[in-house]
């Protein structure tokens, strides 16, 4: 049994896999773990040196797919990829297609990773720093986000496109990224200072967004199941509108479902218009 550790880094894994493939080493006899061997009874074998005799040819598209699937955090993260690579390199292309049992799992992981990148683009919430602090830290916007897969590095360029010369950072429990208006600085280990700035930012200006969220909701169409399906509960606590969700659902269930109007608007004085009225 060969036990390997690639530090959850795709480039490292790719070099290891290329070497294994060159020596014709069967997927059943390799395992990638976290630093130590998981299987106590296995006798560790070293990784053979040199490129090895077997020259594998695989379609170019496969490498991109393996890289994307490698961002998935889960069981057998790297073993699964080597098994796909092995089968395709030995002429079985179905291993990368969704119809195959293994290929279907890889494709599912690719979809999950893509979905998680989309979640980042959708659900990151930046807090603008007050001017003095922004000047001191050279930073305009901070955000804290907890992605389920390793997508920050590959997906964060989106915000450089969106925010122009604004300086921002996104901290996560693992990694982090900072943009100074010109360059992205990605850190595999998020500096503690970044995490603190992002988690402790005060946001007196959040009220406007919360007011909008309350009022754009139509209680007559209440459908909390659909909300949960598109906006999984794990994101709620980092969204400013998260705490409003149960409150609005509760209000709607207790009588506010009659019509579409928000409670706060219904309480205000109305105004009928006659055509003779001078309009603003």
């Amino acid at each position, binding site marked *: 049994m060969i036990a390997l550790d690639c530090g959850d880094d795709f480039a490292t894994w790719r070099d290891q896999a290329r070497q294994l493939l060159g020596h014709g080493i069967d997927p059943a006899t390799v395992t990638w773990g976290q630093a130590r061997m998981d299987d106590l009874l296995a006798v560790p074998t070293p990784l053979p040196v040199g490129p090895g005799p077997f020259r594998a040819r695989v379609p170019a598209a496969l490498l991109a797919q393996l890289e994307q699937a490698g961002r998935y955090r889960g069981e057998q993260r790297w073993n699964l990829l080597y098994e796909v690579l092995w089968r395709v390199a030995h002429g079985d292309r179905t291993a990368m297609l969704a119809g195959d049992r293994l290929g279907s799992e890889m494709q599912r992981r690719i979809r999950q990773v893509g979905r998680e990148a989309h979640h980042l683009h959708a659900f990151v919430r930046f807090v603008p720093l007050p001017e003095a602090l922004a000047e001191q830290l050279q930073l305009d916007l901070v955000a804290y986000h907890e992605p389920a897969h390793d997508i920050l590095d590959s997906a964060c360029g989106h915000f450089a496109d969106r925010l122009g010369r604004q300086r921002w950072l996104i901290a996560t429990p693992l990694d982090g990224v900072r943009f100074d208006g010109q360059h992205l600085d990605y850190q595999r280990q998020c500096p503690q200072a970044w995490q603190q700035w992002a988690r402790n930012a005060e946001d007196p200006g959040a009220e*406007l*967004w919360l007011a909008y969220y309350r009022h754009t909701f139509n209680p007559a169409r209440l459908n909390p199941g659909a909300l949960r399906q598109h906006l999984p509960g794990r994101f709620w606590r980092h*969204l400013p509108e998260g705490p409003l969700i149960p409150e609005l659902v509760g209000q709607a269930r207790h009588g506010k479902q009659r019509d*579409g109007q928000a409670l706060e608007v219904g309480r205000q004085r109305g105004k009928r218009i006659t055509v003779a009225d001078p309009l603003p």
Partner: protein
Amino acid sequence: MQLIAKLGILADAAKYDASCASSGAPKRSSRGRDGLGATNGMGICHSYTPDGRCVSLLKVLLTNFCLYDCQYCVNRRSSNVPRARFSPEEVVRLTLDFYRRNCISGLFLSSGIIRSADYTMEQLIRVARLLREEHGFRGYIHLKTIPDADPLLIEEAGRLADRLSVNIELPTDASLERLAPEKRASTIRQAMGVIHHGQQAVAGEPRAPRFTPAGQSTQVIVGADATDDSALLRNAESLYQGYGLRRVYYSAFSPIPDSPSSVPLAAPPLLREHRLYQADFLLRGYGYKAGELLGETGNLALDIDPKLAWALANREVFPLDVNRAEPALLARIPGIGLRSVQRLVALRRERRIRYDDLIQLRCVLDKARPFIVTSDYRPAQAELRSGLLRARLREPQAPVQMGLWG
């Protein structure tokens, strides 16, 4: 009035418009440049409200003062609602603030009709111009078009916005006359024609200034009048063909406060709206014709989806051999979507397709089973009558509580 109070009133007044899409815009980026905003064709839903609808844009009215008296509308002049009006600068400020926070991908601005159609349209254009020209905003802008406005103003709006929309609201002349006396079907169609003409003028000319690159859309209200699904779908089909519309939105009529007696005070028909969206998708994505889905009159079935309904009514087409059938026909099998069709075609180039492959592809086999043949499967129900099959496949309907007043 404070900004936050105006925002409450004017967001509340805008929520009955169903569209909140931010997709279809061309690639734009602000990387390393002054200004703010990017689009890449993909829409982003930044949040969801407890009605399960996506929040992609800041959707507000510039003002809910309105001269018109459309019976279905919460902002009609005879409605007793609080009124407010934003200045263009206030809308700009809100848009940029929410955008910077990553709460939205752009702005969807509409308005009540004040003074005149032209004046109202000019105000909407002013907001878009401020955003684009003063603030270098490259995010998504959707402007509502006032049907009676000068065509020159509509063209100006089309050069600033990613999408324009003119709402039909009620698909028949009779209903418009009864419920929206100030609106006319002919001017609505004329405005659509102006937009369509503007799009055609720049089509195929990559250097021409962009004109509504994300297309135009419209909305019809479902359940405020007696129009049936057949009329709604035929109307949608003619709009897709005649004006190159990108989307028709169906909005189940929500009861409004201070409701006039001319419109229903019932819960919005959400399932009917859902079936219309499904049928509409079949028109746009799958190549169905409205006439295939419904006869001259009638409504879509609520207990089965329209694709299954078509398959049950056309049993002579089935069962289809998944290994041989044309992709366009594969896509007509209930429970097999466009993505699965693509995958099946890729897979069958490599080898014969078995029943187990469909499970791996996560096709909805409960629906597909009676309609398919694979290399190792033939349906036992192939001879079963459609009525019996339907009884097995129908979705359970939530029980309707007996009303106190019948």
